[in-house]
């Protein structure tokens, strides 16, 4: 079996992280099963549903990550698309803004194609420079200015947060060769997925067990200082432990893990604020137990661009 995997070309580090992810899933599923046997009806149903969803999400993430880079690009592009599609119906757009929405959707394939072709400069400029002017202009050309500030702010924001941010993960495939670093872009991708996922789980777990003082009581009552600090510290430790997936030194990995955890929390809080203004609890129902794509991926897309730049700085700029 091991021979087969090596012939197929899977790197040892990636096998290890997949093994760790599956062990955590098997452990938690078994734990809920035993808990249910010992004290039937005592276990919150939400935990089981959430764990089942984690199984599906991890399977999708792992398969798309270890597959051909083209599949990874397509998968990430689909996630960006799913995020935009989930948000736009909630914004109560005018029906004449449909054309602009279509342009926003069309930005996604362009952005990921630029990443796939390695046109890095244009990739970095396309959304924040060109689309930042074009989309407000398209909104103005329909001749209706009432309520335009809302669309002008939200449409470019959605593109930067969920397309530009997320597409930095595709840009990991364009990193130059780093001496002594074997796990490659797929290892880095799994590293970030693991950190953001475990950060969410740990903040949830610390918050549920110890949580007393809310961080942002008016925005998101479930986020507590205890959960935040506990989650960030444990994620930092895990980031150091999983350092074999990255070209980083221990202190660099700790800083990266810290930034990913904090950025994930910030993305989560921003999305909560937007959802609260619209007056909804979850942005959708695509993932049972978690809500919509946005509820799950808000931290992920916020952490993606900082993660890429940290890896680039530590692995390429500072190393040379």
């Amino acid at each position, binding site marked *: 079996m091991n021979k087969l995997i090596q012939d197929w070309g899977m790197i040892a580090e990636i096998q290890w992280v997949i093994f760790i992810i599956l062990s955590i899933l098997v452990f938690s599923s078994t734990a809920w099963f035993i808990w249910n046997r010992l004290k039937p009806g005592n276990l919150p149903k939400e935990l089981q549903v959430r764990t089942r969803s984690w199984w599906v999400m991890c399977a999708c993430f792992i398969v798309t990550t270890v597959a051909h880079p083209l599949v990874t690009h397509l998968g990430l592009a*689909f996630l960006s*698309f*799913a995020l935009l*599609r*989930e948000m*736009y*119906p909630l914004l109560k757009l005018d*029906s004449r803004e*449909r054309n602009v*929405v*279509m342009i926003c*959707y069309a930005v996604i394939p362009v952005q990921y194609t630029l990443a796939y072709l390695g046109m890095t400069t244009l990739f970095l400029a396309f959304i924040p420079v060109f689309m930042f002017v074009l989309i407000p202009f398209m909104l103005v050309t329909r001749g209706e200015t009432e309520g335009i500030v809302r669309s002008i702010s939200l449409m470019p924001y959605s593109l930067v947060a969920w397309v530009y941010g997320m597409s930095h993960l595709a840009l990991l495939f364009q990193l130059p060769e780093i001496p002594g670093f074997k796990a490659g872009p797929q290892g880095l991708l799994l590293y970030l997925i693991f950190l953001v996922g475990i950060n969410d789980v740990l903040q949830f777990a610390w918050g549920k067990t110890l949580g007393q003082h*809310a961080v942002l*009581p*008016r925005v998101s*009552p479930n986020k507590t200082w205890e959960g935040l600090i506990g989650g960030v510290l444990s994620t930092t430790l895990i980031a150091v432990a999983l350092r074999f997936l990255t070209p980083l030194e221990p202190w660099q990995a700790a800083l990266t893990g810290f930034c990913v955890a904090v950025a994930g929390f910030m993305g989560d809080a921003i999305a909560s604020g937007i959802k*609260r203004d619209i*007056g*909804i*609890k*979850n942005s*959708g*129902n*695509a993932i049972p137990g978690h809500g919509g794509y946005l509820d799950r991926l808000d931290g992920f897309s916020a952490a993606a661009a900082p993660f890429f730049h940290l890896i680039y700085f530590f692995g390429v700029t500072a190393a040379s």
Partner: protein
Amino acid sequence: MPKDRIDSKLFQAHVPNGRRWLLWLLYKVFWRTVFGLVIGLRYVRNAKPHPDGPIIYIANHNSHLDAMSLMTIVPSHRIHLTHSVAAQDFFGTSGFRKWSMQNLVNAVLISRTKDGRDVDPIELLDAMLNEGHSLILFPEGTRGVPGLMADFKRGVGHLASRNPGVPVVPVYLDGLYRNLPKGRTMIVPFGGTLVMGDALHFEGESINEITEITQKAIEKMAYELERENQLPRSKNASR
């Protein structure tokens, strides 16, 4: 017109095998993928198994996508036996429209006005149910105002009271009109929800009662869906 004169040719009871495969590929593969991945339609179904045999599906109507989405929830083995009921005066105007409605949508075209028709639509649809076919009805009769439900026409009452054994499955479609509004041709993905309710069985209710019950059923589903995702009011969360 007496029932025995409505022959099978009139509504093509014997669907050719080729069209059966075409419909399966179109709805269970192509449209299911489009609705699932591109449009992002969320399917909410009741836990009970889909009833077998002839069924009357009824739904609110705001977009051309409505009939497509309903065809995707029909079980595979009955897809060629399920017909959307469409307006002759809108879809029967050109040869191409008529051909595609019959072959690609598996629709049956009926006349909405009394003058100039040679067969009573109720008789025709009743005969189809007797032959074991299912029907997709939009009792509002027209796509109407986006997001608002009009009063139901009595067609569903007529059909259900004549066929007491046939279950009526209410379906509530939310938000599909945003993907393809009336008068537009470009589909822009905006998501939506399809709620399939429990099958209703009628024994001896009057036509008006059935019409009212079915309309209430869909209005209730709409109300429950709206309530489902609202923010809970708590003292911390008050704005």
